[in-house]
């Protein structure tokens, strides 16, 4: 196993241990997502707007808010006792720190999404039995994209005074493309359209992931070095 991967797995393991011990991040994000779904469910008029028209937007808005809560905590736990200095002092590459944080964030956000999706099915009475593999693929591709970029920005804002405010402000422009791709693909999938109708959006998401994960790994050192 390479040194980078070994260090990344140790770092991700530490983050997961901390989060599952306190559960504050996951519970906050999951509760927030549930609240958003409840509000959307009871604020719509089902006689004028059908479930299928509204469902993709609601799903991706909910995933986004939940992910933001999860990403905010990612480097927050490194602030206590200047723990992040400990990571920077260690003989590990900056890419290893990025990869470790990325892996942990992907698990957190995926857990939030795993809680959100059944609630979404319940509230919006959407039949995903045929579309579930497609939904999971779209979710995976979009999540990798905005968590990959979100990990860099959460490292950037951790030392600022208004980190919780700065993260969504900085991250929003970069989240828009994968969210558009995910929402468009989800709309077509739930409408029962053939794969050819939304394969282009899947390719867009995959290319976004490839480009921005690479760029994020390359610029991460500039964000963490002083």
């Amino acid at each position, binding site marked *: 196993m390479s*040194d980078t991967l070994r260090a990344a797995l140790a*770092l991700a393991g*530490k983050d997961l241990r901390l989060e599952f011990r306190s559960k504050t991040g996951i519970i906050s994000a999951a509760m927030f997502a549930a609240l958003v779904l409840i509000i959307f469910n009871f604020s719509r008029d089902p006689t004028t707007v059908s479930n299928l028209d509204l469902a993709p937007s609601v799903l991706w808005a909910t995933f986004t808010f939940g992910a933001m809560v999860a990403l905010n905590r990612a480097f927050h736990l490194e602030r206590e*006792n*200047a*723990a992040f200095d400990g990571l920077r002092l*260690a003989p*590990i590459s900056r890419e290893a720190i990025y990869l470790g944080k990325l892996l942990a964030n992907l698990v957190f956000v995926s857990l939030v999404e795993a809680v959100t999706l059944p609630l979404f099915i319940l509230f919006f009475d959407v039949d995903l039995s045929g579309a579930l593999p497609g939904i999971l693929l779209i979710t995976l591709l979009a999540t990798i994209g905005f968590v990959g970029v979100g990990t860099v920005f959460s490292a950037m804002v951790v030392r600022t005074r208004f980190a919780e405010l700065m993260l969504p402000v900085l991250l929003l422009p970069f989240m828009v493309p994968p969210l558009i791709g995910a929402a468009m693909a989800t709309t077509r999938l739930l409408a029962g359209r053939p794969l050819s109708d939304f394969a282009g959006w899947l390719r867009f998401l995959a290319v976004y992931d490839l480009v921005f994960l690479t760029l994020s790994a390359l610029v991460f*050192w500039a964000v963490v070095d*002083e």
Partner: protein
Amino acid sequence: MPSAEPLLAARGLGRRFGPSTVLRSVDLALVPGQVVLILGENGSGKTTLLRLLAGLLRPTHGTIQLGGKPFSSSDPAARRGLGLLSHQSLMYDELSLQENLVFAARLYGLKEPHLVAAAAMQGVGLAERGESRLGSLSRGMLQRAAIARAFIHRPPILLLDEPFTALDAGSADRVREWLSGRAREGCGILLVTHQPAEVWDLATDVGVLAGGTWAILESRPATLEGFLPRYRDAIRV
């Protein structure tokens, strides 16, 4: 000063924070067995110097060499030769002491991290507190835990920022003994303190930072009492 290939060398090292220049030009050569006591008023740049040498800050100007090779914070392997005891523990309150040390051992790629962690806890007299949540430790225990974490990989260069903070007399004696042992093994030690009496006999050299550079850098005088008047003059300038 003993002559040998420097473990750590700095030339013209400087650092600005915005318009404020904390360090102007600092030269340093740390050889094996050398224990340099760094003194100075609050804000004189002592902590900044240690953070620059540890690679946590990039110098505004000047160079650092580790083992004769240029050192940059982007070189992971070079950081293996350094250990820094900071003002803060660099650990996680919600993990146990043992979990924190095992994590540190894994970051440093040490084999059998659990055994290494156990030995580190034993070394600082905290073996019985391994399962305790770090946040539950007293201030003095936390300082000992931080020492265990900072030097778990047994680096040849030790950078310590006020290591005796919150330590009781027994623990302070233990730390002094440990530092003495490391110096005898050939480690180079840079030690910042506001209490020079605690380590005066251990030091081989003493430096006083004032005005962003060395006001004094020389072999340790025989007595602290004889040195203090010059120290006061140096920081007054």
